[in-house]
């Protein structure tokens, strides 16, 4: 049976990503910012400063909203400072964390087709006896693997930082909570796949990498919405909600995957992208 993807193409794309300074810097800098600096800053602040005073009235309001919710029992035994830290680590940070796979996946996938076009190698690929859907699916695989690995590594590093810096405050390991576990096992892979699929389709249609990034960047907006919703106390991202969102994204992914699998128009791709 013929395989769905070309191993050679996936291997080449992965090598390409590792050797591209821009892509590599994005894949290192973004995780450091969201999974090292942010949690380290918060945990450090909780250890060395008066977090209650820094958070102010708004922070106390957020804690009271949370304490009054169904998830309030998890933090009822904690002090106000512990509650603030706990909420940030388990409710705010996961949303921020999602930006890691999203931005890395967007950077890699947006480059997939238009990058080949800009380097004048897409012609070579289209002249090869490889079907267009195999080409697309190989690009999907090659664009999925790096952000997925980055998200796993980021998750582990983030966990170590939270537990090491959080232990003096909590006297117990607070990471990973159920929220984090469903995030890393369900929502993050689904979101990576969504970003990859959307950006690959965009990348096959636009003229430049810059254009692909500009259009693909819109996908960050729902995550920003989620963050705003949580900070404003509109909703809290619990396990149930994360699972429901994951399921929704899965369905969208299945539709996109189905559409890409059927895509086999070499003529349109060639005439649009090669001059």
């Amino acid at each position: 049976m013929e395989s769905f993807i070309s191993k050679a193409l996936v291997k080449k794309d992965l090598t390409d990503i590792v050797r591209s300074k821009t892509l590599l810097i994005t894949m290192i800098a973004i995780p450091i910012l969201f999974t090292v600096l942010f949690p380290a800053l918060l945990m450090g602040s909780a250890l060395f400063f008066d977090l209650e005073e820094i958070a102010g009235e708004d922070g106390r309001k957020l804690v009271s909203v949370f304490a009054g919710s169904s998830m309030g029992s998890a933090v009822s035994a904690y002090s106000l400072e512990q509650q603030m830290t706990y909420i940030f680590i388990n409710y705010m940070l996961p949303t921020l964390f999602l930006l890691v796979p999203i931005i890395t996946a967007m950077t890699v996938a947006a480059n997939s087709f238009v990058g080949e076009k800009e380097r004048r190698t897409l012609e070579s690929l289209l002249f090869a006896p490889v079907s267009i859907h195999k080409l697309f699916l190989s690009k999907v695989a090659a664009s999925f693997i790096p952000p997925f690995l980055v998200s796993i590594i980021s998750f582990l590093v983030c966990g170590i930082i939270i537990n090491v810096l959080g232990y003096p405050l909590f006297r117990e390991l607070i990471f990973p909570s159920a929220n984090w576990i469903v995030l890393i096992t369900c929502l993050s892979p689904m979101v990576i796949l969504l970003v990859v699929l959307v950006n690959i389709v965009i990348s096959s249609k636009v003229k430049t990498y810059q254009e692909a990034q500009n259009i693909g960047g819109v996908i960050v907006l729902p995550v920003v919405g989620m963050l705003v919703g949580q900070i404003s106390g509109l909703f809290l991202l619990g396990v149930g909600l994360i699972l429901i969102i994951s399921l929704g994204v899965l369905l969208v992914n299945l539709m996109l995957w189905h559409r890409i699998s059927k895509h086999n128009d070499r003529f349109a791709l060639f005439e649009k992208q090669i001059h």
Partner: protein
Amino acid sequence: METLIEVNGLAKSFGKQLVLKNVNFRVKKGEIIGLLGPNGAGKTTFIRLLNGVIKSDSGLVRVKGLDPAQNGDEIRKISGIVTESAGLYHQLSGKENLEFFAGLYGVKDKGRVEGLLELFDLKEHQHKQAGKYSTGMRKRLALAKALLHKPEILFLDEPTNGLDPDGIEQVLSYLKKYNEETGTTIIICSHVLHQLEKICDSFAFIEQGTIAEQGTLAELEEKYVEVLTVNVNTTFQPAQGEFLGYPCRIISGNMVAFDLPSKHAIPELLQGLLQTDPIFSVIPANNDLQSIYFQVRRKFNGIVHQ
């Protein structure tokens, strides 16, 4: 000889621009054919159509009996191509490039990459990034890439562009040798006509989106060279403007040009001259590919070139 490529009444347009119209073309199995024409004549579009990466508007195209629009992958499996841009990955080494394309074309022979690196004199530079290769090395690597899967048909779009004379000689003589050894059919697009004259079995002239003429050099000479001019280096100095009834004129010093009805008149001319004067060289001046190329163009659309 068996016909490998057959094209009848092919037309292709991009939007409102008609790029190819009523193209009729034949290639026999095992021959090297030069596809000649000015920039924008439609050579690259034609090669793309033969490989089934773009679709024609009308007409019949058959490559080894297959329709490129329907059986593109089957044709691409037996075709190798060197595009004008070479299509190499600059961040990968020469060897990595070949390994990647070997994987893409399903080449099982592990020694093929090594063999081609050796053959094209790239072994020493195999670990260097292709982006750091010289133009000549890049062209050789692109040619090695095209030959990885031992194709039955080789499409070469300007394969000698940017090469120095040694590089050109090396690539062309290799192609000739490869054709003789393997029987691979080769289609070469090039502007450098005198290079093609040495290696091609026949020529097709593409002009304003159609094949204006096709044939062997002998056939084309027969058809287009009505008056053969030969430049003779001799001490003979014509007093009148003719010799043995053939018009002649002094070009410079000892060089005299004679206009003959055909090459069959050359022995008679030389015998006549040798009776009184020595002859140091005889050079036909207007039956080479370049002269015929301009004749074809002149006849086809009235463009005058010297």
